C-alpha cells in the first residue's frame, strides 16, 4: 500500500487549498490511511483491455442557441459576496510592492 507520509498530506492539502493544524493533521492522516486501504481493494479486479468509462449516457454535444438568458443582475450577483464595494468584489491585495 502507498505510504501516507506527512509530506504527502502536506502536498495534498496544498493542492486542495486546505490547511490542517497538528491535531487535525494526525486525524486526517489516519483517515487517509483507512480510506486508501479501502480503495486499494480495486487492484484485485482484472481490468486488462478494459477501456475507462467516461460517460454514462450516449448523449453528446447538447447545444442550444447562443442567446443570453438566465443571467442575474449585478445587484443579485453581489448579494452573497462577503466583501464588496457595491460594484466590485474585494479580495486581499495580490500585487506586492
Amino acid at each position, binding site marked *: 500500500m*502507498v505510504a501516507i507520509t506527512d509530506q*504527502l*498530506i502536506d*502536498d*495534498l*492539502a496544498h*493542492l*486542495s*487549498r*486546505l*490547511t*490542517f493544524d497538528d491535531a487535525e493533521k494526525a*486525524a*486526517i492522516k*489516519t*483517515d*487517509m490511511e*483507512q*480510506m*486508501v486501504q*479501502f*480503495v*486499494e*481493494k*480495486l*487492484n*484485485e*479486479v482484472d*481490468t486488462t483491455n*478494459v*477501456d*475507462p*468509462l*467516461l*460517460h*454514462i*449516457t450516449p*448523449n453528446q454535444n*447538447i*447545444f*442550444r442557441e447562443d442567446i443570453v*438568458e*438566465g443571467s*442575474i443582475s449585478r445587484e*443579485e*450577483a453581489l*448579494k*452573497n*459576496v*462577503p*466583501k464588496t464595494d457595491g460594484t466590485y*468584489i474585494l*479580495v*486581499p491585495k*495580490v500585487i506586492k510592492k
Partner: protein
Amino acid sequence: MLSGYTAVYNATVVDRLLAEGAIIIGRQNCDEFAMGSSNEHSAYGPVLNDADNTRVPGGSSGGSAVAVQAGLCMVSLGSDTGGSVRQPADFCGVVGLKPSYGRISRYGLIAYASTFDQIGIFSINIPDAALILEVIAGADDMDSTVSQEPVVAYSSLLSEERNAGKKYKLAYFRQALEHPSLDPEIKSAITGLIDRLTAAGHSVTAIDFELLDYVVPTYYVLTTAEASTNLSRYDGVKFGHQTAEKTEDLTAFYKKNRSEGFGREVKKRIMLGTFVLSAFYFDAYFAKAQQIRRLLSQKSQEIFNNYDALISPNAPCVAFKLGEKQGDATEMYLADIYTVFANLVGIPGISLPLFRTNDGIPFGIQVMSDQLKELSLLALSDQLMQSEGKH
C-alpha cells in the same frame, strides 16, 4: 460554508413545481454537501428518525425523508449521488425514487459528483412520485447533461399499466442476499417477498455478481475525485464563508476560507479525491475505477437485456442509533453497498417501504430497472405496494 447564503435563482425543478401550482413549504436539513449516510454531518445538527428519535434518519437527504415520514408535507425532493434518497427513505418507511441519470435537470442543484448526482423524490405512495416525476423531468436549456428523451405521462399511464396486471421477470444478486453484512431480519423479509412474488406468477432469478465488494471502493474513488473538483469553487470570494483573519496572500486566503468553512467529512473526501487525481496515482486509482465502472455498466446491460427489474435490499441494516457508526473512516461507507450500483451505471432505483422489524423500525426493498424505464419501474412498484398491502 454556505451559512447565510440566499439563492438568487430557482432550480428548474422548483420552477416546474411552482408552475403546476405546488406549494413550496421550506428547506430541509441534509449532510454537508450531501456527504454522509446518517445526517450526522450537518452544520445544523442531525435530523432524528420519526419512528424512533434515538435513531438516524439516514442520509444524506435525511431531512427530506423525515418531512414526509412525519407528515409535514406530502412530497419532498432530495439528491441521490450514491443512495442519499433511497437509503433515508428505507430508514424512514417512505417511498424514495432516484430516477435515471439525466432524467431530471440539475440546474440549481449543488454539485457533488457530476457523473452520479440526480434529484430524487420522497412520497408516501407511487402515484404521487409518478406525478412529481412527470412535472419535473425532461430537457432543460440550463442543463446540458439532462436527457433529451421525451417525458412519459408517468401519472396517467401508471394506472393503465397497473390494471394490465403484468407478470415480471425479476432478478436479484445472489451475493447481495448472502452478504455477511446483511441483517438476517432484512434477508428473511426479502426471501419471503421473493416466495410471494414467485407464487403470484412472476419469475425471480438469482444471478451472480462477483463485483459486489468492489462497488463501494469504485464509487468512493470516482465521487471524491469529482467532489474535489466541484468543491474547488468554494473559495470564499464570490459567495460562501470568508475568514475574519488577515492573510498575507491570495493562496493563504483561499486556504483559510476553505479550512474554516468545510466540515471534517467534506475535507476528508476532498483530500482523497485530490489523492486519486494526482499525477502519480491517477492510473492506479482513478483510471482503474473508471475501468471497473465500465465492467459494471456492461453487467447492467446484460441484466436488463434479460430481466425487467432487479430487486435488492436498500441497506445492510435498518436505521442505526445516533453516534453508532463513528469509528473507522470507512465504516459508514459500506452502508452504501446496495445503492451505489444504480448511480455507477446511471439506472433508476426506488425504495419501497414494505416491512418493519419486530421493534417497529421500518425498512424496505429496492427495485431497479434499465435506464429511462421509469414507467415500468413505477408500475412494478405500484403492484408490489398493492400486493404487500401498503396503500
